[in-house]
């Protein structure tokens, strides 16, 4: 049953109707009352433009209520949000798309991790929330790596390859200082929609920076320690698998194949813990690690820690 608010929203019309986007297993589209908001959303998802029918269509706009605007967000006929501030349903829209991508992509091994790549080699950064995954990925893309994702790594169960999920990087206010040069340039009309997070389209960091399908060769679990040292420490491959499984959305769903996949991944990878006190130094250490690996030098497997300006 369609509710009255949705009827009212539809009656006001949608001046922006998007194409279909597909992110991993989720195909979606959106309709926006304000064409500028629609264009902005389209810029966040331009890398996912696809064809075919969407599984879900979002409707976003405002209706007048008691002389004030009420911002509404629907997914098909279901209300997702209703708020006076446009930033709230806007954030809900991005949240819902992200969650739906995870829910509809269960045929892959999904890890809560960011990732970057150089050439055909990817580096996975599995970690809990607030560990600095997105900040590290943004810093590394800024430093010349290709972008894979800032939130969900999708691994093909048959090939073991990483599929890119290059959504806009969601940067919390705590990292705005160290990424100030990446601040999104948006019009004053869009600013009210973005008071919670920056959404950084990857191509705005560097043109052509999005990775293709890659092979994971480094598993590095980061943790941000304010004021702490920046240090890279090797861990065993079994611990690497443990970290990957711990940060998997669907490890047990894949049963034996899931463990085999992660074990094979670790067999072909070098595994580390990274304590990040300084983003620039962390990016330099990782760059040196990957450079050394490309030159065929040992990847710090001797149990020593790397940091404080040391070189691989």
């Amino acid at each position, binding site marked *: 049953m369609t509710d009255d608010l949705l009827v009212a929203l539809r009656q006001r019309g949608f001046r922006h109707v998007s194409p279909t986007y597909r992110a991993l297993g989720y195909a979606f589209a959106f309709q926006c009352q304000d064409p500028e908001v629609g264009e902005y959303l389209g810029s966040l998802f331009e890398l996912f433009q696809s064809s075919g029918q969407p599984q879900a269509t979002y409707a976003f706009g405002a209706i007048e209520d008691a002389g004030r605007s009420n911002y509404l967000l629907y997914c098909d006929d279901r209300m997702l*949000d209703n*708020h*006076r*501030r446009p930033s*709230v349903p806007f*954030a*809900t829209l991005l*949240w*819902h798309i*992200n*969650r739906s991508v*995870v*829910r509809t992509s269960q045929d892959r091994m999904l890890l*809560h991790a960011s990732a970057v790549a150089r050439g055909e080699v990817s580096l996975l950064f599995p970690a*809990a*929330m607030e560990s600095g995954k997105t900040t590290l990925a943004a810093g590394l893309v800024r430093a010349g790596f290709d972008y894979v994702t800032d939130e969900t790594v999708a691994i093909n169960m048959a090939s073991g390859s990483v599929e890119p999920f290059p959504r806009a990087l969601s940067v919390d206010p705590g990292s705005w200082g160290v990424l100030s040069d990446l601040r999104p340039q948006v019009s004053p009309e869009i600013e009210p929609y973005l008071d*919670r997070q920056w959404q950084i389209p990857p191509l705005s960091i560097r043109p052509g920076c999005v990775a293709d399908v890659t092979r994971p060769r480094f598993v590095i679990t980061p943790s941000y320690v304010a004021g702490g040292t920046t240090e890279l420490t090797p861990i*065993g*491959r*079994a*611990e690497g*698998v*443990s*970290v990957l*499984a*711990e*940060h*998997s*959305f*669907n*490890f*047990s*769903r894949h*049963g*034996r194949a*899931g*463990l*085999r996949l992660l*074990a094979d991944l*670790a*067999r072909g990878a070098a595994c580390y813990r990274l304590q990040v006190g300084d983003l620039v130094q962390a990016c330099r250490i990782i760059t040196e690690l990957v450079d050394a690996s490309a030159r065929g030098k040992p990847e710090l497997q001797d149990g020593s820690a790397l940091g404080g300006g040391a070189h691989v």
Partner: protein
Amino acid sequence: MARRWEVGHMSEERAPEAITRFDRPRPRGSVTTEVLDDEALLHVEGRRALHVLNPTASLIWQNLDGEVSLDELAGLLSEASGASFDTVLSDVLEVVRSLGASGLLHGVITAEPVEEQENQQAVSGAAEVTGDDLRFLPEPPHG
């Protein structure tokens, strides 16, 4: 739910602490093992937990085939390592009882159904991890 423990021609139920040096344990059929370097990763089908065994526990685990008794296994390991038989046997029993308590061995009675053991203690030298949900995703935005 009781499970059966097979010793030679006998069949009986065992609690982990009742495992003796004369038993011949074997893994549950639902356990998948992957060995990386000297460590072993164990996963029970349908469960979220992953067990990581240190090299010693891994070596013991890989020799639990339902044919070799723990007494014989301790003898082999004692001979290979040069450690005293009594010390090795004590370590083997500790590890195997821990594996049994974690629901990884065929026929061992566990405190609760294996399928419900999501938060058990890790086996000797092991860490346990969980996964398989949306808990990593942030909560929906609030006004």
